[in-house]
Structures are given as structure tokens and as C-alpha cells.
């Protein structure tokens, strides 16, 4: 239950980041949407990773972010949050 709540929060926050950054319609963003479908290239993703790192207060190491769908971004972000959580909860959560 807790895990599901974290996941939906991550997805919602990711959606907001997408809409702020790109020209995506929030309606077309769901877990199965692919980055290819959204027309994001490698440069877009490098830029977007910076926003993700800021939003979730995580550090994504180089070479460790191979994702194809929004589901995979959510999973990776949740994994980094979990791995990098120091015990002090973020003020954004």
C-alpha cells in the first residue's frame, strides 16, 4: 500500500515536470507512454534528468538511467529515492 502511494506520487510529480518542460498534454502521459512517442531525444533526456534530480532530490549517476517508458522512469526514480534516502524525510513528500 505504502509502495503504491509513493509510486502514484512519483508519477504525478513526473507528469507535472513533463508538462512544465515539454509541450506534452497531461492526458497523453501514463505509465506505458514511451519517450519515443513523446519525441524526446537523448539531449532532451539529459536535460530532463537534471529536473528530475532537482524535483526528487536524488542523484542519478551517469550510465545508470536507461529508460524507455514513463513506468521505467517511475521505477528508477523510486529506486534512487529508496537507495539514497538518509532517514530524514524530504520536505516535498
Amino acid at each position, binding site marked *: 500500500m505504502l509502495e503504491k502511494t509513493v509510486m502514484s506520487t512519483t508519477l504525478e510529480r513526473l507528469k507535472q515536470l513533463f508538462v*512544465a518542460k*515539454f509541450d506534452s498534454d497531461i492526458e497523453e502521459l501514463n505509465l506505458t507512454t514511451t519517450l519515443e512517442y513523446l519525441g524526446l531525444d537523448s*539531449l*532532451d533526456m*539529459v*536535460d530532463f*534528468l*537534471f529536473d528530475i534530480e532537482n524535483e526528487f532530490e536524488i542523484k542519478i549517476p551517469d550510465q545508470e538511467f536507461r529508460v524507455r517508458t514513463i513506468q521505467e522512469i517511475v521505477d528508477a526514480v523510486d529506486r534512487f529515492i529508496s537507495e539514497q534516502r538518509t532517514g530524514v524525510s524530504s520536505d516535498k513528500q
Partner: protein
Amino acid sequence: MKRRVAVTGLGIISPCGNSIDEFSSNLMAGKSGVRRISSAYSTLLSVKIAAEVDFNPFNYFTKRQVSTMDRVNQFALAAASQAWKDSEPSLDAKEKERAGVCIGSGMGGGNTIEDLYDQLFKHNADRVRPLTVLMVMNNASASHISIAYGLSGPCLTLSTACASSANAIGEAFRQIRDGYVDVMLAGGAEAFLTYGGFRSWESLRVLAVEDPDDSSKSCKPFSKNRSGLVLGEGAAVVVLEEMERAILRGALIHAELVGYGSTSDAFHLTKPSFDQQARAMSEALREAGLLPEDIDYINAHGTATRWSDPLETQAIKKVFGDYACKVPVSSTKSMHGHTMGASGAMEFVVSLLAIKNQAVPPTINLDQPDPECDLDYVPNIGRKGVQVNTVMSNSFAFGGTNAVLVARKMKG
């Protein structure tokens, strides 16, 4: 093989309007784009005035595009898109290989550099925006334009301070004239109205003081009470096209670019040499096959600094002799400010509009004659209904670079 070069498209983003029509009518009406600096840090500055562009990038670009471009790139691409639309050169894949871009800018992505340092030094950031390199690099504007229109010929960037975009147009002209390409988008852009930019210029002690009665009247080229230049920003881009191609496709030809003079003072970084300014004018006339008496209008560099206006006056006298007192010379920087790397292209556009409108824009705020500046500077009121067939645009830069462009009305 020397080929002729037509100007078939014009585009502008300026403190006096973001379309050619608005820009043209504002300048003829003597309407200034100079005003109080709008930024939050303005209270920290000694300089109080600038010629800022009223520009909302989201009216021109998608969010994604905006996030990948410095303000200077946005100006350049917006001006290029106007010029492209004006020209409608409709190139096929093969023709795009013979089409290129040449853009001048003094400082490139100045806003991005400032944001970068702000984050690093003021906020102790340990990482910075991933696209920083791509937004700071001076060739980004040219590349964005090349990508937008799929032009795969030369994609060049020239940086010669305030002559950058005059040089860019001149060198693009040579590319077409000498047969390397058939079409070039050429011009320049600048967006360096940043806190650091203002501070840097302040320290040089060349900026105008604010007019106590009316901020918009602070830039006074050739007037005895001139106090310096007013910093501006913006972009101007033109489509240059090989003449036969332009005629064959029935393009609207604004003018023929006929001469380009390019010299260096080889003397001092900031102190100008009127000899080399004069030589740049003479070289442009020589290439154009024109006599000084053929020129109907000169758009002066006319920055309104104490020393540069009399020197340019001397240079014009050296080239034009007795005719110097007869040819109308105006500094439209009095209205759009000194747009630095964009100024050469912006004032080339002003010169072409003089041909198009058969009208000469004024030098505004010229209320006190200076004995050292004794030409016809078209004081305060533009002149309509005059014959303007041939024009010259002067650009003289810090570093000692001089660039002069000469264009003439299409015959027939």
C-alpha cells in the same frame, strides 16, 4: 565568377518593434525604444536606461524550444523566421545544400553565462543545467537557424563586437557572389542586458546618463550634449540570394547588396581610427562601382559617445569630400540603442527600409549642434518623399574592426 546578390527577406526583433512594419513606422516617427531598465537589479546599477526588447518567447516557440535556447538564440531564430517567411525561397533538398547561415554576435549566450555563475558562485550549486554549453556557445544561433530550415551549406558565426552582424552580412554576400552558395540567412543577434553586462559597460564610462526630463531621450548622437551610448538588444536577419535565382522565381527584391568594406584599425582596442573607417567606406564604394555622390543615405555608426561621433564625421568627410555636407546621415541608435552584435544588421535593415519607403529616418534628440559634428544628421524629424536609391551602413567596433555595407534599389 562574380555574381549579383539580392536581399529578398527581412526580419527584426528590436526595442522599436518586433516586426518590420512596426520597426519602420516607429523609426520614421522618431519613437524611441529607450526606457528605464526593467530588471530587478536595476536599483543596484548606476546606469538607469537601456533599449530592451519586449519579447515573450512563448509567443514564438514551444516550451521545449525555449528551454534549449538562450535569449540571444530566441531573438536570432525569431528574426530569421520573419526573414524566411518574407522571402519564401522554397528550396528543394539539393538547393538546401547550397544555402547557409552566417550570424554575428558579440557575446553569445550572455544570459546563460550569468545564470551559470549565479548558481555556482552565489548559490554554491554543485551541478549546472545540462544544456549550458549549448546555450552559451556563440554559434548556437546560427545552428538553430540552420536546423530550423534544413540549410546544410556553411553555418558560420562571426564575432567582431559591434561590427559582428555587418561582417556577417558582408561575408555571406561574398559566399554568394563568389559562387559557393546561392542563398544565405545572414544577420546578427545580441542579448547582453544582464547585471554583469551593465556593470561591465558602466566601468568603461561610455554609457549615457539618463535625460532628466524624459528617459526615452537619453541617447543623443551628434548632439553637443551627448553623454554616451545606450545599451540595447535584439536581432536582425536578412535573406541574401543570388540575383538570377531571385528574379527567376519572381521574388520580391528589397535591394541589391553591392558593396562590402572590411578593415581593421590595427591601432587600439577602443580608440577609433578615422582613416580605417574611411577606407572601409571607400572599399565598399569601390566594390559597388559607385562614386560617393551616388549615395543617398548613410546610416551612421553614431554611438553618441564623446569621441566617436566627431571621428565618424571626419571619416565621412574624408571619403565624401564636399558632398559629405549634402548626404543625409542619421544615427538610429538614438531610438533602438546600441544593439551591439546585432547593430550592423539592424541598421542595414534600416538602410534598406529607406530605399523601400523612399524616406530617411531621423537622428532624434539632436538639439544642440556640435561644431565638430557638422553634417546633415536629419535632426529629429524623418524625411518622407525623398529619393533614396543607394545607401551605406557603417559599423565600427571595439577591437578596431570596421565594416561597411552598400546596397542599391533594384532597377526596373
